[in-house]
């Protein structure tokens, strides 16, 4: 039922030249719909969380989900599509903003880190999903956490230093404000990805070698 499986050995090798490397229509629309999902999560007002109801925006959740649901190749492509559409000026970034202007803004580092985050999360997730079902949620959470700590936060801090002119110490302090929310989003992404992979077992073809 799911043409996604048609790519056989895996859509993960889109960067290489073999003839089968191209995506079919379902891969293409998964990439496009996930780019739209990131946009929808970015522009919608944050969800109030916890007793204090501090709103968290779900942009990074969408980015990580693209990686761990679609895998490294399609996930990165979805995030890149989202970035390109935002950079040419459609209002898909948080706060209905868009355009090259964000490249000079204080959050540019975070935006540029997103494709890398999806790539890292996707690569780790493929490894996790191949291992079978034990501790899958926890391992996917760690994959998301690693991706966001390795890419989003360092590049975000660099962006704050370059664009907002903050010294390293201040930039780290500003960035640290986002850490608790990020951990929540990593947990959420892992839980969601497990649900999605359970509902659509062929989404990441080749990783379901051990159906239990």
């Amino acid at each position: 039922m799911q043409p996604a499986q048609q790519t056989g050995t895996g859509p993960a090798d889109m960067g290489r030249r073999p003839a089968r490397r191209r995506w079919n229509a379902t891969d293409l629309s998964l990439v496009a719909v996930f780019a739209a999902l990131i946009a929808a999560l970015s522009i919608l007002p944050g969800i109030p969380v916890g007793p204090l109801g501090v709103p968290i925006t779900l942009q990074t959740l969408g980015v990580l989900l693209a990686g761990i649901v679609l895998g490294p190749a399609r996930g990165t492509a979805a995030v890149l599509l989202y970035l390109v559409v935002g950079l040419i000026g459609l209002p898909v970034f948080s706060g209905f903003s868009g355009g090259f202007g964000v490249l000079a803004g204080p959050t540019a580092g975070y935006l540029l880190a997103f494709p890398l985050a999806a790539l890292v999360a996707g690569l780790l997730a493929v490894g996790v999903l191949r291992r079978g079902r034990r501790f899958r949620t926890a391992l996917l959470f760690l994959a998301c956490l690693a991706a966001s700590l390795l890419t989003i936060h360092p590049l975000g801090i660099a962006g704050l230093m370059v664009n907002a002119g903050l010294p390293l110490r201040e930039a780290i302090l500003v960035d640290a404000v986002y850490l608790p929310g990020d951990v929540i989003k990593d947990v959420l992404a892992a839980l969601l990805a497990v649900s999605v992979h359970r509902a659509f077992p062929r989404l990441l073809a080749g990783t379901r070698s051990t159906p239990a």
Partner: protein
Amino acid sequence: MRGYGATLGLYEPGKGFLYRLPTAVKAAASLGCAVAVIAWRSPSTTAVALVLTVGCLLVGARLSPARLLRMLLPAAPVLGILALYQSLAQGWLRAFVVVGGITACLLAARALTLTTTTQDLLDGVVRLVRPFRSIGADPERFALAVSIMLRSIPYLAGMVVDVRQAARARGLERDPRVVVTPLVLGAVAYAHRTGEALAARGLGDEDDEDDDGP
């Protein structure tokens, strides 16, 4: 939120030379502004960039100064905090360089999106992809992906509104999992339906690939 698709894009019809300039020129200028401000962090660069962008918007798009200020409103809190911090920590000149530079870039980007229709912008990007055909890029598939994406945003946003209402009715609106799970599952299902619809019409698949099922 269901009406989002209709309002997608920030184009507003108007008169002035910015409207007649080719999209490529405006995009290059807007990008050039960001590069210049980041590369040469000096008060004079910032001042020139600010004067140029404000001048272009006032003259080239015939905006009123009040309208110009309103465009900066969404970014105002961040800019304000940044200005305050920089002037306290590093002096007002540095604050002007940083905040003025960001403001100029925001306005330059806005000048592009204000005076160019969404369709023109998308056509421009697709044209930009064309030279990369030799390394495997496919402008048509890229354009198809962009249009599916833009078409999906209102659908997904509408779904969020519905799901949130359902969650609120059950008193679960504080639980993000209840809100987001149906959204993501719905998005994947929607993508599969769209993919099947595309394949049925012979769109989005590689020409040299036959389309038999697994």
